[in-house]
């Protein structure tokens, strides 16, 4: 029998190893798998390469993972946001590496990684500093840059409901990067608001089919990052 549910966030992230590339869902706090990130802080794997659109806020979640010195490199589109102090400080003092990627290129590189496309061409960034050093080519008279697939060893994502096969549905704009990250990671770890019976999710409405998911842990009442930040919380 296929049962991808695991008992705890700690168990779910236990095999994340030093030096792994970890794709972390979320756009700001929407979709951020904060309990899985905190479990990864407890776990302690280091020298991680983390892919996320941003770099977290305050001293919880992704920002706390960075602050804890576990992240050697960030791949993201927008590393500074409101209440984002941790990454800027480390970056300015040269203690963390940054690969800046346009947001749509980041999403498409992940999708390519998940879809077995090693590289593709896009017009995004042509003529800008972010195209420097990249191969360029013209199709039908327009210039494009060659972008490479991006894959993860692990993905940490959050969803609304899941079943034991790992079929997922999301909540509003918390969906964002999660589906492409689930595709792009060798091991996809999900925190779900509810684990429902097999068949309870209409097959027409499944957003991430279970084939892209390895482990599901239920976190019925996930913390809200902005509330923790407002409360001045620091993890751990």
């Amino acid at each position, binding site marked *: 029998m296929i049962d991808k549910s695991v008992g705890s966030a700690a168990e779910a992230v236990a095999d994340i190893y030093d030096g792994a590339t970890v794709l972390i869902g979320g756009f700001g706090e*929407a979709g951020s798998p904060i309990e899985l990130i905190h479990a990864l802080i407890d776990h302690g794997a280091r020298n991680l390469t983390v892919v996320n659109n941003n770099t977290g806020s305050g001293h919880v979640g992704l920002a706390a993972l960075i602050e804890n010195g576990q992240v050697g490199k960030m791949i993201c589109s927008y590393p500074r946001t409101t209440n984002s102090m941790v990454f*800027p400080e480390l970056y300015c003092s040269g203690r963390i590496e940054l690969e800046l990627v*346009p*947001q*749509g290129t980041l999403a498409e590189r992940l999708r390519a990684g998940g879809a077995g496309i090693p590289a593709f061409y896009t017009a995004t960034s042509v003529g*800008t500093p*972010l195209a420097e050093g990249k191969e360029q080519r013209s199709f039908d008279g327009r210039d494009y840059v060659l972008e490479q697939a991006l894959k993860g060893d692990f993905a940490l994502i959050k969803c609304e409901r899941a079943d034991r096969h790992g079929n997922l549905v999301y909540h509003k704009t918390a969906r964002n990067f999660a589906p492409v990250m689930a595709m792009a990671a060798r091991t996809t770890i999900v925190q779900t608001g509810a684990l429902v019976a097999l068949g309870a999710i209409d097959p027409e409405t499944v957003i991430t089919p279970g084939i892209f998911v390895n482990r599901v842990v239920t976190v019925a009442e996930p913390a809200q990052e902005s509330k923790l930040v407002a409360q001045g919380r620091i993890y751990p």
Partner: protein
Amino acid sequence: MSKESSRIGWNREAMAKRAALDIPDGAYVNLGIGIPEMVAQYVPEGREVIYHTENGLLGMGPPPAAGEEDPELINAGKKMVTALPGASYFHHADSFAMIRGQHIDLCVLGAMQVSERGDLANWSTGASDAIPAVGGAMDLVAGVRTVVVITQHCTNAGEPKLVDACSYPLTGKAVVSRIYTDLAVIDLTPAGFQVVELAPGVSFDYLRQRTGGKLLPRP
């Protein structure tokens, strides 16, 4: 505000209102952060415009009423929004397929500089101590059919933002079609910056003194 009100020209609301006038019925529109966000509230009645936010929502509505906020229903500026009837949610790769695939009719962005060839700089001053952050700006200017800019005509320091060539790192080359400033509406043409409309009390000479690059009077 006092600074703005002491100057001639349009204020922020009037700039947004002027830009809104040009949005046609039925358009699919992506609005950037800042003054561009204000455009939605000024679209003339009778026009149905569908707003796209690149974090995965088409059919974005106004900010939620008190008590209806959902921190996981946000726009690209990470502000809480609503979803109108007819909305749809989708993941990031699908969202940027809409952008990159030229399905969005119009995007309205802020600017640090626009060159007379339509080059846009709006993501970085190039300062070595700044944290670079690009977001979806490069995808938008490369993919959206029509890219317009809303910006103050000059920087706080009084420097022109409309220039012959951008000194800041580019977001995209030859991408801007039209610029709405506090002083004028200006089109990008092969011959240079073409004045379309002057704000009340603004003369062509006044505008020319505050504009880099080649500025052409209304024909």
